[in-house]
Every structure is written in C-alpha cells, then in structure tokens.
C-alpha cells in the first residue's frame, strides 16, 4: 500500500482507492491469473497475483473503467496482499460495501464482481500451489 502525502496514513475513501486503483489497473497482470469475470452491467474484472510460500505477495488487475469498481478492486487488492489465499477468500462483498458506505446502493453490486474476480484468482492460485508450481 502506498503511503499518504508526507508520510501520512493513506486515506480510506472511494476517491483515494480510485486514485491508486487507476495506477494498478495500468500496471499489467501478474503471473497467476484468474478468469475474466463480467456482470450484468457489462463491466469486467480480471485479477492476477504472485504467490510466495502460500502468501499473496502482490496483486494486479485489469478492470473496466468504472470508478466504483476500481475502488472496490483496489481495496480488495490491498487487503489481500500479505494474506494466504484462504484468508483472502474470506473477504466478502459485504465487507467492501460496509467499508465504503459513501457508495450509493445502486453501485454496490460492483463489490460482488470484484470479489468474484478475486475468488477466480484464488482458485487458480490454489491449483498452482497444490501442483507445486508456486515460486
């Protein structure tokens, strides 16, 4: 997670997650990839990551340019990094929605798409770990 300005604690608003999410969205995908997930709004999310010793070392994603979706995905990426795939699996759309209450209810379904994309990555990561292919 990036630090705030002049060493201050990073903010936790939608806008701040969006700023960091836009940068992550441009940074490209990582080694282990889930599938591209889509929702009824024709938004998509594709998560990727690097695993070391059953720990998620980094997360990348490529998602549709929707401010709310980007913010949720960035929040998920920051929360999942440093956790095991099992622990990251327990992050829920309800957690995201509760953490960013300023998102209007009609936009909160983006959290479901974000979590689905993360779960897809975790399923693939788990397969790699079982096969002994984790770096």
């Amino acid at each position, binding site marked *: 997670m990036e630090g705030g300005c002049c060493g201050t604690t990073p903010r936790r608003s939608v806008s701040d997650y969006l700023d960091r999410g836009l940068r992550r969205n441009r940074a490209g995908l990582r080694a282990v990839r889930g599938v591209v997930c889509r929702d009824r709004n024709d938004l998509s999310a594709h998560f990727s990551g690097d695993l070391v010793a059953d720990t998620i070392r980094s997360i990348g994603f490529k998602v549709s340019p*929707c*401010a*709310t979706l980007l913010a949720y995905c960035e929040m998920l990426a920051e929360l999942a990094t440093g956790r095991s795939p099992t622990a990251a699996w327990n992050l829920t759309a309800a957690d995201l929605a509760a953490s960013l209450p300023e998102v*209007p209810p009609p*936009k909160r379904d983006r959290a479901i798409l974000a979590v689905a994309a993360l779960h897809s990555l975790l399923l693939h990561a788990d397969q790699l770990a079982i096969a002994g292919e984790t770096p």
Partner: protein
Amino acid sequence: MKVAYIFATQRHNVSYVLAKMILPQLEEGRHGAEVIGMFFFEDNNFVLVDGNPIGARLVKVAQEKNILLMGCDQCCYEREIADRLFAGVPIGCFPDLYKALSGNPPDQVITL
C-alpha cells in the same frame, strides 16, 4: 427541441445560469426547449447535495418534468458527497448518462 445540459465549468453557472435563468424558466414553463437531462461535473455537484436550496428547487422541477439529474461519480467521490445527494439523484459516468438518455435522446447537448 429536446436538450441536455452538461455543467462542466465552474465559473458562475450554477448560481447564475442555472439558478437565475434556466431554473426559473423551467418553473414557469417558458424555457423554450424540453430539457431531458442535466449532468454535473466537479464543484457543480454541490447543488445536488441534499438541503441545497437551489438543488431543492431543481429536484422539484425535475420530478415534475421528468428531467434526469445525474452527478459525475468521480467528482462526487472526490468531494465525499456521493452519499449526501438528494434522494433519487444518481451518480455515474458517461456510460450511465448515455444509457439513461438513450430512451429519450436530446436533439442538442449544451455544455455550460
């Protein structure tokens, strides 16, 4: 003629052009064009915050005349007002605006 207004600049547009020209004309039914929608960028979104007196008049006339009001989502998030808008006023971006207007598209889009 059907028009949509996009409030994109932040000079004197909401307090003057909207509040003292467009809004009174809409309230009196003599604007001269059928307004389909209004979209707000940047600080113009503050007019949509619940309790704003100009916004209250705008929401009332919008409900009466079926005018779409929409705030820019990124602008509202950045100003931390996305959850403080008048009830029923959505936030969104261009895809949301185009989709909302697609059933009754304007003849002209006027950027103010």
